[in-house]
C-alpha cells in the first residue's frame, strides 16, 4: 500500500482516485477546490457589478444581465463558495481534532460533495442554456420568481435543491461523527472550539435546510407543474415563500459564521500561547446563538406588514443575539491579553476580523430596530451590513483558517510575505468597498438597481466602492499566486508548525490516510498542550498497535449525483417538450439503481495490517 502510494501515477489514476475517494482529507481538498472555483466565479460577478456601478447611468452591462449578475453573485457566494469552503475545512480538521480515523459515513461524505458540485455546475449551466441565468435575486421572492420568464429560476430551483441535499448529508455525517467517534477521553467539554462549531453548525444545517427544500419544491411545482401555492388568483399566498426562505436563510447566516468563530477561537489560543479564555462561556454562547438564530427570521420581513406585535418580538429576539456574540468578542480579546502573540498571516486575519465583524454586528443592531428598518430596508445600508458580517466574518475566517491549516492539509506552509500582502490589500479594499456603502444607503440608494443618477451625492461613494473592490481582487490574485508558489516550491511543513494545542498537530503534515496509527488518549482540554507541559511532546496512545479498519472507495456517489443532475435538466426542460421527461426517468433511474447497488452489495471495508503499520514506522 505504502509503496503503491509513493509511486508516480498518471493523471487519469489521480482523477479516478479523487472521484471515488471516501477519505475525509481528500474530500476536504475537493470541497476547497470546488468552493474556491465558485468563489472566483462569484468574485468575477461582483467585479462586473462594481464596474457597472462605478459611474452614474453606466451601461457596461444591460439591465437584464445586471439582474442575473446580482442573483448569481449572491447565490454563488452563499451556497457554492462560502458553505463548501467551510465544509471543506470541517472535513479536513474536525476528525483530526477529535482523534477519529475517519467520519461516521465516508460514503455519504463523498455523496454530499458530489451533490454540491453537480448542483453548482447545473446552476451555472443557466448562463449558456434556457435563456439566461436566474434573475429574481438570491432570495427569489414570489411572484417575481414565479413570473420570471425563461428557465433561469428553474435552474436556481434544481441547482439549489441538489446542492442543498448534499449539504444536509454533510451535516448529518458530522453530527454522527462527533457523537460516536470521539477518541477516549475526548469529552464534549474538551473538544476544540472549531469542532464544537462544526457540531452546532451541523445542527443548524439539519434543522434549517429542510425549510429551503420545501420552499424550493413549492416554487418548482408552481413553475413546472401548474400548482397554485404562490398564485394569488387561485388562493395562493406569496408570503409563504418569504417565511420558508427566511426560516432557512437566517440560520444559514449562522451556518456561515459559527464555523469561523470556531476557527478564530482555535487560532487566537494557539497563536497567543494561552488557553482560550472562557472556554465554557464560548461553548454556551455558540449554542445560544444557534438557538436564537431560529427565532429571528421575520426581521427580514419587517416591512411586509406582520403587525407591531410580531415585529417587536422579532426585533427584541434579534437584538438578544448581540449578547452571546459580545461574549465571544470579549473572550477573544481576553485570550490575547497578556499572551505571547505571533503576528503571522493567520493572526492578521484574526485581528482584522474583530473590528470588522463588530462594525457589522453594530449595524445589525440598527437593522433589528423594526421602526428604523423601514428606512434601511432594501437600501445599500443593508448591503453594507451583510457584507461586513459575511466578508468581514466568514471570508476573513476562511482566509485565516487556510493560512493556519494549510500545512496540515497540504504539507507545505504558505508564503508569509505574500500572505501578509494579501491580507493588507484585502483588508483595506474591503473597508473601502463597503464602509462607504452604509452612507450610500442612508442617502437613499436602493439595492439591486441597475443604475443611479448623476449629482445626487452618490457618485464619489460608488467610485470609492469600486476602487476598493479592485483592491480586494488584487489581494485574491496574490493569494492564488501564493497557492501555486507554495505548491511548486513552498517550505515543507513540520507536524506542528505553530506550537499547537489540539490533536491535529500531533500527527504528520499531511496526516497518513488512516490519521492516527493508535487512537489517542485525551487527558484534558488542549490535549497536545497537556502532554507538552508534562514534557512528553507527544500524545499517549489509548490502544496497542493493531489492525486499522478502513472504508472502500466507491464511484457510486458520483453516479448518484450525476443521475439527479440529469433528472434536473429533464425537469427544467420538460416544460418545453414532454420528451425531456426521458431525462427525468433516466436520471432518477440511474440514481436509484446506484443507491440500490449500494444497499445490496455488502461493503465491509478493508484492514491495514499491524505488520504493515510497523513497517511504515521504520
Amino acid at each position: 500500500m505504502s509503496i503503491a502510494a509513493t509511486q508516480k501515477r498518471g493523471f487519469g489514476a489521480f482523477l479516478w482516485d479523487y472521484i471515488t475517494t471516501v477519505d475525509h482529507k481528500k474530500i476536504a481538498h475537493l470541497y476547497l477546490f470546488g468552493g474556491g472555483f465558485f468563489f472566483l466565479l462569484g468574485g468575477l460577478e461582483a467585479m462586473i457589478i462594481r464596474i457597472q456601478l462605478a459611474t452614474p447611468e453606466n451601461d457596461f452591462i444591460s439591465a437584464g444581465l445586471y439582474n442575473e449578475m446580482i442573483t448569481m453573485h449572491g447565490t454563488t457566494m452563499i451556497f457554492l463558495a462560502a458553505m463548501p469552503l467551510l465544509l471543506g475545512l470541517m472535513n479536513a480538521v474536525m476528525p483530526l481534532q477529535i482523534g477519529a480515523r475517519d467520519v461516521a459515513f465516508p460514503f455519504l461524505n463523498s455523496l454530499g460533495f458530489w451533490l454540491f458540485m453537480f448542483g453548482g455546475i447545473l446552476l451555472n449551466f443557466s448562463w449558456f442554456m434556457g435563456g439566461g441565468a436566474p434573475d429574481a435575486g438570491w432570495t427569489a421572492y414570489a411572484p417575481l420568481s414565479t413570473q420570471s420568464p425563461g428557465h433561469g429560476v428553474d435552474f436556481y430551483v434544481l441547482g439549489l435543491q441538489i446542492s442543498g441535499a448534499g449539504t444536509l448529508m454533510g451535516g448529518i455525517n458530522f453530527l454522527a461523527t462527533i457523537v460516536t467517534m470521539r477518541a477516549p477521553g475526548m469529552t464534549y467539554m474538551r473538544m476544540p472550539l472549531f469542532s464544537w462549531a462544526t457540531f452546532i453548525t451541523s445542527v443548524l444545517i439539519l434543522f434549517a435546510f429542510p425549510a429551503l427544500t420545501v420552499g424550493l419544491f413549492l416554487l418548482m411545482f408552481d413553475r413546472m407543474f401548474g400548482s397554485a401555492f404562490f398564485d394569488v388568483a387561485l388562493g395562493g399566498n406569496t408570503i409563504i415563500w418569504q417565511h420558508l426562505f427566511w426560516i432557512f436563510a437566517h440560520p444559514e447566516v449562522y451556518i456561515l459564521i459559527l464555523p469561523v468563530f470556531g476557527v478564530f477561537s482555535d487560532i487566537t489560543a494557539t497563536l497567543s500561547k494561552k488557553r482560550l479564555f472562557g472556554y465554557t462561556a464560548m461553548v454556551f454562547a455558540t449554542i445560544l446563538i444557534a438557538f436564537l438564530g431560529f427565532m429571528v427570521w421575520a426581521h427580514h420581513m419587517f416591512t411586509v406588514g406582520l403587525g407591531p406585535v410580531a415585529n417587536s418580538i422579532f426585533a427584541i429576539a434579534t437584538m438578544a443575539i448581540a449578547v452571546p456574540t459580545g461574549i465571544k468578542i470579549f473572550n477573544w480579546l481576553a485570550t490575547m491579553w497578556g499572551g505571547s502573540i505571533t503576528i503571522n498571516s493567520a493572526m492578521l486575519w484574526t485581528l482584522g476580523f474583530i473590528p470588522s465583524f463588530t462594525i457589522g454586528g453594530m449595524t445589525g443592531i440598527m437593522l433589528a430596530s423594526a421602526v428604523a428598518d423601514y428606512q434601511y430596508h432594501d437600501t445599500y445600508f443593508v448591503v453594507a451590513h451583510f457584507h461586513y458580517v459575511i466578508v468581514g466574518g466568514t471570508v476573513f475566517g476562511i482566509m485565516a483558517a487556510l493560512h493556519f491549516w494549510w500545512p496540515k492539509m497540504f504539507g507545505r506552509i504558505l508564503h508569509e510575505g505574500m500572505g501578509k500582502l494579501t491580507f493588507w490589500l484585502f483588508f483595506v479594499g474591503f473597508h473601502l468597498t463597503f464602509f462607504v456603502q452604509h452612507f450610500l444607503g442612508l442617502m437613499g440608494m436602493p439595492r439591486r438597481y441597475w443604475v443611479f443618477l448623476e449629482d445626487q451625492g452618490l457618485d464619489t461613494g460608488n467610485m470609492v466602492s469600486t476602487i476598493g473592490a479592485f483592491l480586494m481582487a488584487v489581494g485574491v490574485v496574490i493569494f492564488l499566486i501564493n497557492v501555486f508558489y507554495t505548491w511548486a516550491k513552498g517550505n515543507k511543513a513540520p507536524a506542528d508548525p505553530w506550537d499547537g494545542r489540539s490533536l491535529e498537530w500531533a500527527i504528520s503534515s499531511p496526516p497518513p490516510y488512516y490519521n492516527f496509527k493508535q487512537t489517542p488518549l485525551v487527558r484534558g482540554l488542549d490535549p497536545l498542550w497537556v502532554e507538552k507541559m508534562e514534557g512528553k511532546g507527544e500524545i499517549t496512545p489509548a490502544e496497542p498497535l493493531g489492525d486499522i479498519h478502513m472504508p472502500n472507495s466507491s464511484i457510486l456517489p458520483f453516479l448518484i449525483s450525476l443521475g439527479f443532475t440529469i433528472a434536473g435538466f429533464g425537469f427544467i426542460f420538460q416544460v418545453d417538450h414532454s420528451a425531456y421527461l426521458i431525462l427525468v426517468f433516466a436520471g432518477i433511474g440511474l440514481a436509484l439503481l446506484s443507491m440500490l447497488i449500494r444497499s445490496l452489495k455488502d461493503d465491509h471495508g478493508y484492514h491495514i495490517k499491524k505488520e504493515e503499520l510497523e513497517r511504515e514506522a521504520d
Partner: protein
Amino acid sequence: MSHDHSLNPETMPQEPEKATLEGRNKFYGLWFFLGGETVLFASFFGTYIALRNSTAGGPASTDLFGLGLVFAMTMILLTSSLTSVYAMYHMKNNDFKKMQLWLAITAFLGLSFLALEIYEFTHYIIDYGFTFRSSAFGSAFYTLVGFHGGHVTFGIAWLMALMVRNAKRGLNLYNAPKFYTFSLYWHFIDVVWVFIFTVVYLMGRVG
C-alpha cells in the same frame, strides 16, 4: 465479511443495532435524519394550514373528506407500526424467521395503506374534479399527503430490498442495524400520518 465471527454471534447482544460502531453510526445518523424530516413535514404542514381554506371557488375540505376511509387507513398504518415492533422483538431474540414474517406483514399493511390512498386520490379527482391544480388548497393537500405517501412507498421499497437481500443468510450484526433503522423510519412515517389525520382530515371536517 461472512468469515468474521464477531459479526455472527451465537446469541444477539442486548442491543444488536448498536453493538458495532457502524451500527451506532447508522442509529444516530437515522435519528438525525428524522430530525430534518420533522422540519420538512412541519414546513409542509405550515403551508397547508395557511392555504387550507384557499379553495378559489373549488371543492372545500368539508365537501371532500369522509372519515370512514381515512380511519381505516389510520388503523392500518398504526397496526403496521405495531407489527414492525414485533419484528424488532424477534430480531433481538435472533429469531430470523419470525422477524421476516412480521416484516412481511408490515410490508403488506403498508401496501394496503397505499392502495387506499391511491383510491382516495382518484375518488377526489374523478368524482369532484379536485386536483393538484384546482386551487392553492388542492396544491397544498396533494403535496402534504403525497409527500407522506411517497415516504411510505420508499419505506416499502427499502423494506423489500432488505428482506430479499438477507433472506438466505439470516441475521447478523452487519444487517441488524439496517433492519432497526428501517423500523425507526417506519414509526416516524406513522407519527406523521397521525398529524395528517388530525390536521387535514379531522380539522377539515370542521372546516
